[in-house]
């Protein structure tokens, strides 16, 4: 009964209902789409800057590596690299995996020397797991099969004063404690945001293993997953399987690998939440205003309802219902529009912006269901709160005054 009357009352004043609905729909779309945009941007930042360029979706390393790698980088490596990588590649959700061996030492151009903290990488595997790693090349090219090729971080190359084509001498301490020397040819220079270009040096994994006298050893296994959104789940599965197999390893997913991932995510969420709250306060005031006007216009009607026996709480319920109907309708329409908009933009290649170093930032809006839930919940709560005072005012009307006023 009340639902029907509430709906009819909204329909009766189409223009006011339309504008109130538009305000709510606009608010819900802005909140949900902003959430989707921020999530898309966050994903782009995480994927483009880190996951596809340097970290992978998750990494496997020796359980003591984090704690002891500074003092004992070679002793905290995984000894059965190839077999372990092969078994990881057979795990659920894993698309590709490859190994890297940490290598530290001194690099020199003959006149200037500096310490480096670099990597021996399996180039084929790196291409599969970190397709964005080549985007970090600022000069020259990536490594090929020649075992004497090296790629330097931009700042390290600048400090040494070397460029592509130059030769450098590399000195390392081997696993057995000896010193070894090799000459490498600089074929490329890398840099990027959050990239350690002041110390980075890269060579082929097999050369690094031979150089350090560490055959088949890797410091980390980097993994690419089939579905990015399930990476954490796949990482947990891999960790469980490796633990069952008695491997002395830990698995760290991208949320742990990316510096400030949680903080940055929280900042994005805080922005979306703040926008939500501000918008919904404005929307709530709009609903309250519309409801007060409706009650002002319908005083005689309320008086009639009270005269024929409607109880005050029932008139309150009627106006609350009208407010909630407006809120829910706006929330549903807004949700459909926002989700449709996000999907349409994603389907057409996303939003593109100019980034640093001529890079293009492509944001594919992704619906953030926590922000969406917040928007829907807020539109419901705000519509109740905003209708509450007008509804309470309707319940306090004196029926005679309402009926007899001009």
């Amino acid at each position, binding site marked *: *009964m009340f639902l029907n*009357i509430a709906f*009819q*009352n909204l*329909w*009766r004043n189409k223009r006011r209902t339309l504008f109130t609905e538009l305000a709510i729909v606009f608010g819900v779309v802005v909140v949900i789409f902003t959430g989707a945009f921020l999530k898309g941007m966050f994903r782009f930042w995480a994927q483009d800057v880190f996951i596809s360029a340097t970290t992978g979706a998750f990494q496997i390393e020796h359980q003591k590596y984090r704690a002891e790698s500074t003092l004992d980088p070679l002793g905290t490596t995984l000894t059965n690299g190839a077999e372990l990588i092969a078994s990881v590649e057979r795990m659920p959700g894993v698309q590709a995996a490859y190994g890297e061996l940490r290598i530290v030492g001194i690099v020199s151009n003959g006149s200037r020397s500096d310490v480096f903290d670099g990597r021996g990488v399996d180039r084929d595997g790196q291409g599969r797991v970190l397709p964005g790693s080549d985007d970090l090349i600022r000069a020259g090219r990536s490594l090929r099969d020649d075992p004497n090729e090296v790629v330097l971080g931009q700042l390290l190359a600048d400090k040494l004063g070397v460029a592509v084509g130059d030769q450098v001498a590399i000195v390392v301490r081997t696993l057995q404690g000896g010193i070894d020397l090799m000459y490498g040819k600089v074929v490329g220079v890398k840099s990027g945001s959050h990239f350690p270009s002041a110390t980075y040096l890269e060579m082929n994994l097999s050369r690094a293993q031979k150089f350090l006298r560490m055959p088949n050893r890797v410091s980390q296994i980097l993994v690419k997953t089939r579905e990015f959104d399930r990476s954490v789940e796949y990482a947990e599965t891999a960790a469980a399987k490796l633990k069952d197999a008695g491997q002395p390893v830990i698995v760290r997913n991208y949320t742990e690998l990316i510096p400030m991932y949680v903080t940055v995510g929280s900042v994005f969420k805080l922005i979306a939440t703040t926008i939500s709250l501000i918008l919904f306060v404005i929307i709530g005031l709009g609903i309250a205003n519309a409801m007060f006007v409706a009650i002002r216009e319908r005083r*005689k*009607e309320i*008086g*009639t*309802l*009270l*005269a*024929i*026996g*409607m*109880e*005050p*709480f*029932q008139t309150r319920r009627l106006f609350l219902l009208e407010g909630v109907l407006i809120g829910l309708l706006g929330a549903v329409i807004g949700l459909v529009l926002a989700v449709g908009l996000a999907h349409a933009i994603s389907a057409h290649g996303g939003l593109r912006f100019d980034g640093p170093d001529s890079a293009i930032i492509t944001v594919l809006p992704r619906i953030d269901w926590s922000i969406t839930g917040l928007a829907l919940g807020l539109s419901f709560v705000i519509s109740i709160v905003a209708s509450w005072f007008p509804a309470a005012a309707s319940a306090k009307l*004196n*029926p*005679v005054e309402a*009926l*007899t006023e001009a």
Partner: protein
Amino acid sequence: MSIRIASVTKQYQLGMTTVNALRGISLKIEQGEFVALVGPSGSGKSTALHILGALDRPTSGEVWIQETPVTQMSDKQLARLRREHIGFIFQSFHLIPVLSVYGNVEFPLLLMKTPKQERRERVMATLECVGLADRAQHKTEELSGGQRQRVAIARALVTRPSIILSDEPTANLDSQNGKGIIDLMQKLNEEQRVTLVFATHDASIVSRAKRIVHILDGAIVEEVPASVLQG
């Protein structure tokens, strides 16, 4: 159902002025009576009608409906009393515009939580009674003034109230429609012993009432059986 009021006063504020709408009136109306409250505009007859129907509270004095004091009742209790025992008919009809003829008449039964089948039967029987059964699904705005007042009467009757209170029910109607409404009300009074109390200027209503109560400046100045006037 009888109504009794004793020493009822009603004051209200009009801007800075205190208006004494009723100045201590006492009146008893028995079950099945047809009473006309008459007097010039502003005399207090509508205010008296509202207090008789438990729609308004007196400033002082007592009101009994079926010998139950109502002045101390809560708003909820008063609403229930009106819903179950009293029907109101207003000069301006006061129909709910978003509801159909059927919906308007059905509404009080919905408030009483009457079962659906019974609601349907009672609504259609009442609309039949006021001659609007064929207009049940019409919007009220599609009806003439006389038809709208019949809907209002049907809405007041559908709960089978003991008392119907009516404030100038024919004021917005032409004479022919007005006569039809009075005929209908009189028939209800005679056949169903519904107590009728009208606040009116309409001489045709006054001529049919069984008792006439003259109110002037908030006080009852004369109370006479119609037979005296007609005689």
